[in-house]
Each structure stands twice: as structure tokens, then as C-alpha cells.
């Protein structure tokens, strides 16, 4: 089955980014496909390559980058939301790309199920 995921909150402040990641990991392990993870609202802050969490904590951004690399997942950051919040190509982490909101609607059309994680 093909899943589309929408993440509406940034890393660390809310659990949404963690829950979305763990859902993706479990879905992939069960042989499902994750069509796209779309980052909207403060969710765009998942895409900054400048985070440096404490060493005994999870690195939420790196975790997304690795998940994308290992499983060819399309991580899309909404351009309008990203510009509002200071996410640009110059601070974008590997595996993420910036694109338009149309990509979210497209995910809704193409995925068998679209799940939202937010506040």
C-alpha cells in the first residue's frame, strides 16, 4: 500500500515529527511504500541541516535524511511555509527538496492513504 504523510509541526517541540517518522519506519518494514512526506506549517523546520541536538537525544533531521536515502522517499518542504520560517536551499538538509503546495494535493491523489501528524 502507498502512504502519503503530512507533518505540520517542527522537530522537538511537538511529538508529531517523531510519530510520523516511527509510522513511516514501521510501514516500510512491513513492505509498504511511503510515497512522500510533505512538511507544512512549522513542519518545514524538520528540514534544517543546522540542528545539533544533545548527543544523548535523537537527531530528528538526520533520521529523516537517512530514511529518505535508504528508501528513496520524497521529502518535500512547502516553499511558502519555508520562506515564512527561514528554510531555504542554503540550510536544507540532505534528502529534502523545496516545492509547492500542489505536491501535497498530488500526494492525496496518488497515495492510497494520507495521514496527518500535527499539534
Amino acid at each position, binding site marked *: 500500500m502507498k502512504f502519503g504523510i503530512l507533518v505540520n509541526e517542527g522537530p522537538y517541540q511537538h511529538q508529531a515529527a517523531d510519530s510520523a517518522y516511527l509510522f513511516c519506519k514501521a510501514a516500510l518494514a512491513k513492505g509498504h511504500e511511503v510515497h512522500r512526506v510533505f512538511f507544512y506549517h512549522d513542519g518545514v523546520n524538520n528540514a534544517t541541516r543546522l540542528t545539533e541536538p544533545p548527543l544523548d537525544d535523537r537527531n530528528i533531521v538526520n533520521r529523516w535524511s537517512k530514511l529518505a536515502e535508504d528508501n528513496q522517499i520524497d521529502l518535500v518542504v512547502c516553499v*511558502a511555509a519555508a520562506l515564512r520560517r527561514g528554510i531555504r536551499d542554503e540550510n536544507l538538509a540532505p534528502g529534502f527538496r523545496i516545492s509547492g503546495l*500542489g505536491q501535497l494535493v498530488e500526494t492525496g*491523489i496518488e497515495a492510497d492513504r494520507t495521514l496527518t501528524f500535527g499539534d
Partner: protein
Amino acid sequence: MEGVVKKFMFVNRKAPYGTIYALESLEVVLISAAFDQDVSLAFLDDGVFQLKKGQQTKGIETKNFSPTYRALDGCDIEKLYVEQESLEARGLTEDDLLVDVTVLSRAEMGELMEQQDVVLSF
């Protein structure tokens, strides 16, 4: 996926201005109009406040985006549903709203939600 038409519902449960969800949700709705899908908007709980007439945001130095709801009609987004109990619990009636909506009971709203393919909530 050429020609696929899915039922999309955007669920709005949050008040405007206190958070950005209402504004950014509206941006997705406008974009969705270009995809020829079957789009509905549902307003529940504090989400009904998004449609309140008379918003004047000068004092908080923030853009008043409420006129955009009036522009939805011109984008062929015509299915706006509001739950009756949510209005009543906030002392609002249809006359208080910026746009024409269909008022539904909780059961009707639940049924409508069940029929959707994609439900996006902000």
C-alpha cells in the same frame, strides 16, 4: 493518475490569528482547486470563527485574510459545511458568517466525513 477524482475534505477546527493553521489551510484549499478534485471544507469547533464577519486586524498588525473565503466560490470551491452545534456553542448563526454555508448536524457531518477519500486537518 490522469482523470482521477478523489473526494478531499479540509477540516478546520481552529480559530483564526491565534495560530496560522486557518491561513495556511486556506492556501492549500486554493491550490487544490487547480487539480479538479471534489473538494469540501468542514468547519467544526473553533474553526467556525474563521468565517466570522467583521474581522479587523489592524490592531494586531496582521493581514486580514478572511476576504479570501469569499473568493473560494470563484475558484469553484463551493462546498462549505459548518456543524450546527459548533455554531450554537459559540453564539453564532449563519447570519454572522462571511459566506454561504451548508449547516449540518453532528450526524450529517460524521456521514460526510466517512465518504471522503482524503481528509486533511490543520
